Structure formats: structure tokens, C-alpha cells
């Protein structure tokens, strides 16, 4: 019990310190997807959809955190399908996975069908869902937690392909 309490306190202290650097997720509403694509025009990025309530998403976030650590120049955009009320938990989760500096968004409209449609009309809503945007913004969509090798292969290819 004492040990568990001490671990919890250490975890709290670490997270309290770490969250200083992590911004709150931005509200993802109708039009946000267009905004994200425009902001990254001419550059590759990986768009990852996730939720606090999705187990496989934790594996995915772990791998994305490692990927970003290996490739600091890689643009990672994370969109949570939770709600802005969950901002503190979202930030803590991203910090835990080493994704404090990634661009983070959270669904801020209960009419989620519209948000999903703007991201990808063909997406059935399964999580995690990952989109690889190359430099020309040709998109490859993948469902489910991805193998580290696939992420690495994409990162290397997209970062080394000349504009």
C-alpha cells in the first residue's frame, strides 16, 4: 500500500512537471481537417485517430511516441475521438507516450459523423485509425495498431523522398 502510494506520488510529480510543456488538445470541429491539411501542405505527416477508451490505441501511441523520438522532424497529428472534457486525461496520456510535442486535437462536436466524414468518408469508425500523408498528400489509410516496422518504413520513405 505504502509502495503503491509512493509510486503514485512519483507518477503525479512526473506528470505535473511534464504537462507544463504539453498544450491542451485543440478543438476538432467541422473544417478542422481542411485546416490541418492546409497547414501541412507540401509536407508529409501522419494523422492518428485514437481514444482513451480504446485498448489497441495505447499500443499505437507507444509506437508513435517512439517513432517521433527517432525522427524528430516527423509531423505527427493526433486526433482523439473523446471530448474536450477529457483534456487533462488526454494530455496525460500523450505525455506518458512521449507525444507531448505532437499536434493534438480532440473531437469538439457531438455530431461525430460529420467529423468522421471530413476525415475520410470510407472510415467505419474503428480505432486506432492511421493516415499516412505523403508530400503530395496522397493518403494511405490503415486500421488497427500498426507494426513498428511499418511505421518506420513509412517515416524513412516520406522523410527522404525529395519534394
Amino acid at each position, binding site marked *: *500500500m505504502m509502495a*503503491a*502510494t509512493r509510486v*503514485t*506520488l512519483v*507518477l*503525479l510529480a512526473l*506528470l*505535473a512537471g511534464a*504537462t507544463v510543456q504539453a498544450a491542451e488538445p485543440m478543438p476538432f470541429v467541422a473544417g478542422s481537417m481542411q485546416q490541418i491539411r492546409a497547414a501541412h501542405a507540401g509536407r508529409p505527416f501522419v494523422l492518428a485517430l485514437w*481514444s*482513451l*477508451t*480504446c*485498448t*489497441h490505441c*495505447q*499500443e499505437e501511441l507507444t509506437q508513435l511516441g517512439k517513432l517521433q523520438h527517432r525522427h524528430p522532424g516527423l509531423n505527427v497529428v493526433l486526433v482523439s*475521438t*473523446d*471530448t474536450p*472534457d*477529457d*483534456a*487533462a*486525461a488526454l*494530455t*496525460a*496520456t500523450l505525455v*506518458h507516450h512521449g507525444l507531448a510535442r505532437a499536434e493534438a486535437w480532440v473531437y469538439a462536436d*457531438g*455530431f*461525430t*459523423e*460529420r467529423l*468522421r*466524414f471530413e476525415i475520410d*468518408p*470510407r*472510415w*467505419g*469508425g*474503428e*480505432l*486506432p*485509425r492511421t493516415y499516412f500523408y505523403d508530400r503530395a498528400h496522397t493518403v494511405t489509410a490503415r*486500421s*488497427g*495498431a500498426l507494426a513498428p516496422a511499418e511505421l518506420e518504413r513509412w517515416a524513412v520513405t516520406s522523410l527522404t523522398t525529395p519534394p
Partner: protein
Amino acid sequence: MIHPGLLSAVMLLATVLGAAGCAAPAKPAPASADHALHTDKKTSDRNRMWQASLARAPLAVTVAFDRTGQLWRARVRDGQVWLDRSLDQGRRYSDAVAVNSQPERIAADGENRPKLAFGPAGEIYVSWTQSLDVPFSGHVRFARSLDGGRRFDAPLTVNDNHDTISHRFDSMTVTAAGHIQLVWLDKRDAQAEARVGRRYAGSSLYGAVSTDRGSSFAANRKLAEHSCECCRIALALDTDGTPVAVWRHVFGANTRDHALLRLDDQSQPVRVTHENWALDACPHHGPTLAIGHDGVLHLAWYSGAEKQRGLFYAHSRDRGASFTPPFAFGNPDAQAGHPQVLALGTRIALAWKEFDGKQTVIRVQQSRDGGRTFAGPATLAASASASDHPLLVSDGVHVLLSWNSVAEGHRFMPLAGDSP
């Protein structure tokens, strides 16, 4: 100084990281408090989240006709299942009666909603999933009324493993003999394997039967291993009295197609869909099954497989041993999903959701020849707000759509060709 929201965030994070399975897509459950640290603070945080979850009006609405043609409607509000009834096909409803007098957290959105069934002597049976404090955990609950819905007995917990793990996604039917069959997705086997350091793909399908009008349930029985974790189970009664279940299953490492089991104590699960949707993810997208008076099984389902993405329909004339080649319906470029199938003689109705870029629409396609051919799709209802999955029900003469949306509220409407 610790940010006030951070404590609950850390607790939530800890439980999420420690849990296994899929939760409802809408909201995480409140975190569990298991340490003495800041007890008051934790209690107030948890109470706040608990109250918030109770205060949210869930979208899920369940409707069913009883054996006399009365329409019953179950909704969840403030931690209670509320039941009302209509004698005029949903134009007017009676005052609602609370099924459970003590509020509890009830799963009521998307793939999880209370279920209604009726006994041969007018018994009313209600089952639901009670969400527990830890994310992804729940108990299967059951309550009955023997006086026509005026009052309900105190609910029972049907799962006989009471660990704080997943026993969720209940489905219910009543056999001709009046036996109540419940099935659900259960994590006890996965938990047992995890304790000895082994990985267990998915959940298990469990069931329990009551032969005494819901006074009690016999011991839980394992029906199948390795179901997918968070998709509704389709359950229908065959003409020979056998309940038939279809669910999303994990074949091999991670192929999430569908399996069928006849609950006759002898049959083994058989694979009935073959899109080979291999992924480590939670589709939140279960199948639908209807069995006509002619004993034909009608099945509809969703697959996200790269080469066969979308909605599919097939039927079986040999009690589920083999199915016709899948018929694709719905527009996969418009999020076609969450299908319903209903059989009324040789009339087969399909309903599903699409999003047309501005609003969610309920599309319908009907067959008049037992599912061999279908007329073109039509739009029956629309909403530019969040909405529930569609449900199809029949009073034995008409086919009707039940659909709840935030802006329009609960709607109940006949399909084309039906005068209400």
C-alpha cells in the same frame, strides 16, 4: 501544486493502461479510486464524473412489440431503465415505469442498449449491461415484471463471475417453452490466461438460461472462445425453438469476421463471413440476424476489409450451415453502417445509417422474394445531429423503423408500403 484535473486524469490513465478490452465509443468511465491518497478529492472527482455520466441522456432507445401487439419502449435516464408502452403504433405512450428502482450506470449507446423480451404468459423481461467503475468492466443485469409492467422485481446479476472485468453486450430471447436465454461477451477466460502470463485473443461468448420465468438463472456456460470484444451479439429464435447467435469473432491471430452458433447444446460455432478483416482494433460494429417463419436465416453485417469494405447481406436455407454469396448494400463512400435486418414472411427489410456530407440518413432496401432480389434503396429519415443506430421491428403486419436523434427525438415510422 498539482492541477485539479490532473489527479483524475492520472487515475483514468492508470486504469486505461491496466485494462484490456473495448469500451463504448462515446465516453470513458470514471476512474477507480484504490489508494488512500487524497481520498476526499478522489471521491469528489469520482462522484462528479459519476454524476456527469448519469446526467448525460443516452441516445439508445429500444422498442419491441409484445405477443398482443403492444409496443414497448425502453430508454435510460438518470441511471434507470424507463419503460413505456403505446397502443397506437407509437403515436402516444403511457407514463413510463422505472425498471430498476436503484440507479446504476447503464450502458446505452451504440452497440450497447437494454433488451426487451416477453414470456408466453405476458411476462416482461428486461436485460442491460451495468457499467462498473473500471473502464471496460460491467455486469449483465436482468429484471422482470409479472404484472404486465406495473412493477418490476429487483434486478439480478446474471454473470456468476463477479470480478470487475467485462461481462457486457448482453442479448436476450425467449424460447417457445418460455425459457429465457441470455448471451453476452465475457472476459473471465482472458483474465485467467493473463494471470499465468498468456495472451488470449478477444473475449468469450457466455450464456445463461432461466427456466423459472426469471426467478433465477442456471450456471453460466461458455459457448465459444475468442469473440471480438465490443460488438453487439445478434440473437434470434429459429422455428425449431433453438436460439441462434451470430457475433464478430477473432479467427486466428486477429481476423475479425463472424461466427454462428445454434444454442442446442450440441452444435459448434461455424464461420459464416469471410472478408478476412484482419486488424488489432475495435470495430464497434456488430451483426444483425432475423429468422423468418419459413426457417430461413437472414444475416447482415459490416466489414472494413480493404477489398470488401461495407455492408453485406446473405441468407441460409439450411439452418445456418451455409449462406448465399454476400450481397453488398449501402454506399461505402458514405459511411454505410450499423445495419438491421427484419424478416416478415418473404418480405425482407434492411435499414442502415449513411452520412451524405451534411446529414445522417436512414436508408432502407426491401425484398419481396425472401432475400433473392432487393428493390433499390430509399431514404426514410434524416438528421443533422447525433443519432442512435436504427432499429426495425414488426407487429406481424407492418415493418417499422425506430430511430432516436438529438434534434428530432425518438421517431417511429412505417416503411414504404406500410399504412401505419
